[in-house]
Structures are given as C-alpha cells and as structure tokens.
C-alpha cells in the first residue's frame, strides 16, 4: 500500500505543481504531511504489530 501512496503523492505533486510552487507555505505543508504519512507507513511495514495508542492509554489510566 505504501508504494501506491508514494506514487499518488508523486502524481499529486506533478498535477498540482503550479498550486504547490506558487506559495512556499503550500509546498512546505504538502511535503511535511507527505513525509509524516510515509514515515507512519514505513513504521507499519517494519512492525505491523506495534501496540496501539489506546493500549498505552489503557495501561496508563488503569
């Protein structure tokens, strides 16, 4: 799935190049969010059985 997402990001970048390059803020935000998304994906691929946030909260709150 990560490859599909990476390709979609590339496609969006090419398709919306003018919109993204017209403002530095747009480009930075797009790249920042894309990197976060891809990092989350890579972590998931490396270890798909990572305990969820709720599990941590459950341990902490009980």
């Amino acid at each position: 799935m990560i490859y599909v997402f990476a390709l979609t990001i590339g496609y969006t970048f090419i398709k919306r190049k003018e919109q993204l390059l017209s403002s530095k803020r747009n480009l930075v935000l797009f790249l920042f969010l894309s990197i976060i998304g891809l990092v989350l994906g890579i972590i998931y691929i490396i270890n798909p059985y990572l305990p969820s946030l709720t599990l941590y909260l459950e341990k902490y709150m009980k």
Partner: protein
Amino acid sequence: MIQTNREVTLRQIAFMYLFISLSPILRQIPTALAAEAGRSGYLSPIWSTIAIFFITAIVMVLIKTFPGLNIYEIMVQLVGKFLAKIIIFFYLLWILLSITAKINIYALTLQFTLMPQTRSDFFMIILILLVYYALLRGIKTIFRFSEFTLGPILFLITVLFICALTRLRTDYLLPVSTIKLPSTILASKNVIAVGGNIIIVLFFADKFGITITKNQRNKLWSGALVFSVLTFVITIFTFGITGADLTANLAFPFYITVKSISFFNIFERFEVLVTIICVLSDFISICILSWLLLRCFQWLFNLKQYQFLAVPLTIIIFYLTYYVSSTQFEFNFLYRYIILNLNLIFQYIIPILLTIVCLLRRKKIQKQF
C-alpha cells in the same frame, strides 16, 4: 476537485446531523446506557434533551450574533487570531482522532456482521476511495445524499418498531427504581456526546448566507428533537427485547435485537439493513469530518487552496487508524474514556465559553454587525 463555494441550508445540516448520529445511536448508546444505568438507562435520552436543546440554542445565538461567519471567524472576532488558531489546532486534532476512530469502527462493524473473513485493510481502502469520490463531487452531494436517504431509513426504523411491539417485554423495562435515577442522569453524557454533533452547523455557518429565516431555524430545532426521540425509541427497543444485562455486554446490541424481528412472519433478516444503515452513516460522517479537517488546515495556515492536502492527509489517516486502535476492545476503551470526554469539551465547553465571551462583549459586537 473539492467544491466548497456552494451554499448549504440549515435544513440540509439538520438532515446530515441526524444521519451521522444514526450509527452511534444504533451501536454505542444502548450499550453505554445499559452498562452505566442498568434497566433504567432508557430514561437517559430524556435528560440529555435538555443539554442538546441548550447547545442548539447556543449555536443559534452565535449564528444570529455573527451572521455569515463560520466558527473560525467567530473565534477571531471574540478571542483574537492567535487564540482562535490555537483552538482550531485542537479542533483539528480532535477531528483527526474522530476520523480514525470512525474508520476503525466502520471496519469492525462490517467484520462483526457481514464479512468476518475479510481483512480490515480492504474495507478501509474501499471507504477511502468512496470518500475521495464523494468529496470530488462536492460537499453538496453529501448533503443531498443524507437528505434523500434519511427518510427511508426513518421509515424502516418505524416499521421495525411496529413489528417489534409484540416482542417488547415490560419486565425488562419496568419497574424503574428511583435509586437508579442519578445514574441515568450521569449516563446521559453518552447521548449528549453524540447529540453535540449539532455544533457542526458552526463550521458551515458561512455557507448559509447572511439571513436565516425562522423556518430554517425551526428545522434545526426539529433535528434536535428528532434526535432525542430516535435515541429514546432505539434504546427502549433494544432494552425491551434484548434486556439491559445482555445489552451492556454486546458490541452491537441493536443488531442482535433486530435479528429476532420479523414482519408478520413473512420478511426477516432485517439486521443486514441495520448494518447498511450504520455503514452509510459512518461513510457520511467520515466525508463530513474529512471536509472539516481540510477546512481546519485552511484556517490554521491561511491557505487559499487546500485540495492538495487531500492525498497526504489520507495517508496519515490510513496508518493512524492502525496506531490509534485496532480491536473492538480497544475501540470501546477509546470511545468510552477518550472520545466521549473530548466530544464534551469540543462540542459543549468551547462553544459555551465562546457564547459567554460573546455576551460579555455584546455591545462592541453589536456595533460591528
């Protein structure tokens, strides 16, 4: 891509509000009320009506005081740009968490009811594609869909209720003990946290235009009333057939309740329709929340266009769904202890604080508008 320059009406918002409330009404509320208030739990929707009408009145006051302004613009007027951005940032996080939880429960519902062998990834990918396609058609399409579909759904629920009347067991509902009344009042927070979705109106407030007729306002009040009646009916229905003890221990008690209903012994298996209603309601909720998420980004970063954010946000939401919660038990904990309380903060406390500031600065505001 995502069209935002079309107007919506309060009537459409009221329909959408009822539509997105359907899945929590059918899925979470009966279980929560049975667990917290026992057999008397079906009284909680009555107490919650007060809070829901109160928040509707607050929404009305804000719309009336700031005609044509959305929640962010109202916040800017009341607390300044810096604080408004901080609050919007927290709204953004809340919406992000709500979307991931919705996607999770949508996949779990389908696995629990119709397709237990299918992986949740499949449901999530299909949902994401559908949401993308729906947003591509514009937010108006989503409102229209809610408008057309809600009528048949309410009709179906009425038919189910009529069919179930003979199966209702009064010993499951009566007698109501006065000792349990305080717990029914406390348990009503489960209903209040869903009914508070009405504040979504404020996010769309810039789409209504400056003038809102009395008839339009009445539609929103009717929406709040129908929500309360529907919650009450569904809870009675579930408690009366399944019993509060069993309801408290089931993930989707209404589904089990409907399994025992038949239409004059001719038609049965209505539970499939209940699953479809929940799935449709979740789909609309995710569409609306996705649109709100994009709008929060727009307000937070002063973006003129925000369509390019759709793809990176989709990726984040997709993977975040695994990291937030992945099983039914985890979702139950997340909903009961985190989402419920966050809903109360973002749907009630913040709008109430804004209204207090609005009332304190009434004279200054009246000069501007």
